[in-house]
């Protein structure tokens, strides 16, 4: 699939811009701070409803305005559709598909696939677990769009439960205001376990789908320098009685995880009340990455880490292209022309020549590639296509 037209209103630095994009390579070139990343960020947002740079939506709205609109034309196979999303911080975002009536923004998930490579990707490998959880969740909503609401509800339940634990352990406990109510906590336990099991189950499945792609893409990027693996690590494992971890299990049922979560929450109750936080659940999970059986986070060199980060993005791209393989992972009907748009935000300047060449080789024939670079020389040879100059939030096609 590819984006043939993009139009922004009050998004980031753009008051209004229209860009006609082509299949193949589209390079955005211009000095720092002119608005190159802003363009590709908008396309990433259409695919994931998130920015690859910021967690809050406020910076996405042009300063001094209240709402931003991203409008696009997406071509998949021989069908084109218009997809439009309106971002209003503090309110629920809304979307419109093919001039239909307004719906929730969530309804556009799955219509566009995109994978963004950015200099920040090193945190996927070297950073804290939350970066890897985010990586999985972004992939998760593209592979299984209906899980967006599960993720949002889990976030909400977690915040509610943590607040309850805090007030229960705080000075108000036992006061005549009603104090701590065990029944209420049990209600939140049940919700947390129910939603948490869905997320753990899905992420476990996605890591299983991703792992063979990672092994292959790492082999390509590093030119056979090692065997890369990825395994889901559940926070439940630390409290389980048996040796079998969730990550190592080939099949695992949602009901089993739910029961285990409920069980563990009961076991941890005293500790949680003391600490005032939820100690187990998918918000504490991680993905363990290894090269030749050594944990990448602690052992890998800088170059190996970069190769792994690239491998993770390429593996997402491959997985989104071919779709999930295991029959129990058919979250949505996959359909044809699912190949994601590739976004390369400032990555070539970060890479050494070898990795750069291998990445070029890998993306040169992709359906659509969007590249940002400060100078034309940073766009590697072999990636010819459209070129746009970006200057003070004006985009001009030059090639």
């Amino acid at each position, binding site marked *: 699939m590819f984006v043939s037209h993009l139009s922004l209103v009050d998004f980031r630095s753009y008051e209004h811009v229209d860009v006609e994009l082509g299949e193949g390579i589209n390079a955005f070139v211009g000095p720092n701070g002119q608005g190159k990343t802003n363009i590709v960020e908008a396309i990433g947002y259409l695919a994931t409803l998130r920015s690859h740079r910021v967690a809050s939506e406020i910076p996405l709205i042009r300063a001094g305005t209240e709402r931003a609109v991203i409008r696009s034309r997406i071509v998949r196979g021989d069908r084109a559709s218009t997809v439009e999303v309106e971002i209003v911080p503090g309110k629920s975002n809304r979307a419109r598909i093919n001039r239909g009536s307004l719906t929730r923004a969530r309804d556009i998930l799955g219509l566009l696939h995109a994978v963004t490579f950015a200099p920040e990707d090193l945190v996927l490998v070297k950073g804290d677990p939350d970066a890897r959880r985010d990586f999985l969740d972004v992939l998760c909503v593209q592979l299984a769009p209906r899980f967006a609401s599960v993720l949002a*509800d889990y976030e909400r339940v977690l915040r509610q439960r943590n607040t309850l634990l805090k007030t229960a352990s705080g000075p108000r406990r036992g006061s005549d205001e009603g104090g701590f109510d065990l*029944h209420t906590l049990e209600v939140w336990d049940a*919700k947390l376990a129910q939603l948490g099991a869905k997320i753990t189950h899905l992420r476990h499945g996605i890591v299983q789908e991703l792992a063979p792609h990672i092994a292959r893409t790492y082999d390509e990027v590093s030119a056979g320098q090692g065997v890369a693996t990825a395994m889901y690590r559940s926070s439940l494992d630390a409290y389980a009685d048996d040796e079998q971890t969730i990550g190592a299990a080939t099949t695992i049922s949602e009901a089993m995880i739910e029961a285990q979560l409920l069980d563990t929450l009961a076991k941890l109750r005293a500790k949680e009340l003391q600490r005032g936080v939820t100690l187990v659940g998918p918000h504490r999970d991680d993905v363990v990455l290894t090269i030749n059986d050594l944990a990448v986070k602690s052992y890998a060199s800088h170059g190996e880490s970069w190769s792994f980060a690239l491998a993770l993005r390429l593996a997402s791209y491959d997985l989104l292209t071919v779709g999930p393989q295991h029959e129990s992972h058919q979250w949505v009907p996959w359909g044809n022309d699912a190949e994601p748009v590739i976004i390369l935000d400032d990555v070539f300047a970060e890479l050494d020549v070898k990795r750069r060449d291998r990445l070029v080789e890998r993306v040169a024939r992709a359906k659509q590639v969007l590249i940002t670079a400060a100078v034309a020389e940073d766009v590697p040879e072999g990636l010819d296509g459209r070129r746009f100059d970006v200057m003070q939030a004006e985009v001009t096609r030059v090639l």
Partner: protein
Amino acid sequence: MSTKPTTIKDVYEGAVQDLIDELGRLPGVGPKSAQRIAFHILDADPADVQRLATALVEAKARVRFCDVCGNVAQAETCQICADPRRIDTVICVVEESKDVVAIERTREFRGKYHVLGGAINPIDGIGPSDLRIRELMARLQDGVVQEVILATDPNVEGEATAAYLARMLTAIEVKITRLASGLPVGGDLEFADEVTLGRAFEGRTLIGS
């Protein structure tokens, strides 16, 4: 090149600003809408403005909450509780009075209501003891009520409240049902259209008895 953005606050003073501030405190009214409404009021006929002001003051003075169900009422009991044609054996539990209005519009329901006054929401500091749950329990003591329909909002807090009530009600011999799914998840009951809400009522599921 850039000029300092002037906020609305910098511009108006005294009575006009007070009016904008008060309007801006209303739910769903942002600073721009508050400004627009304020100038609409300033432009309007004095008699119209007087009618609005009277309506506000009268409503606040006259409207109270039903002693039985907690719905808005003009007297000690609301019109629904006082209506002899309504069935006594089914109680529909909702979060707010506006949910009663939404359900009444569907014309699917002939029983009575119980308005909780919100949902369990630790972040907002609302626990079960802040809701009219004790009053609900009291209404179920005489064994007249056969079914309690839990019609709290289809969002995280509404679900938690329904789950909590279901637990509390297991001690009482009564059928407990929940509105069928199909309502927009994560939303407010009051925003569901009549047909969807009506269907959710017809297809309600048993969650305990």
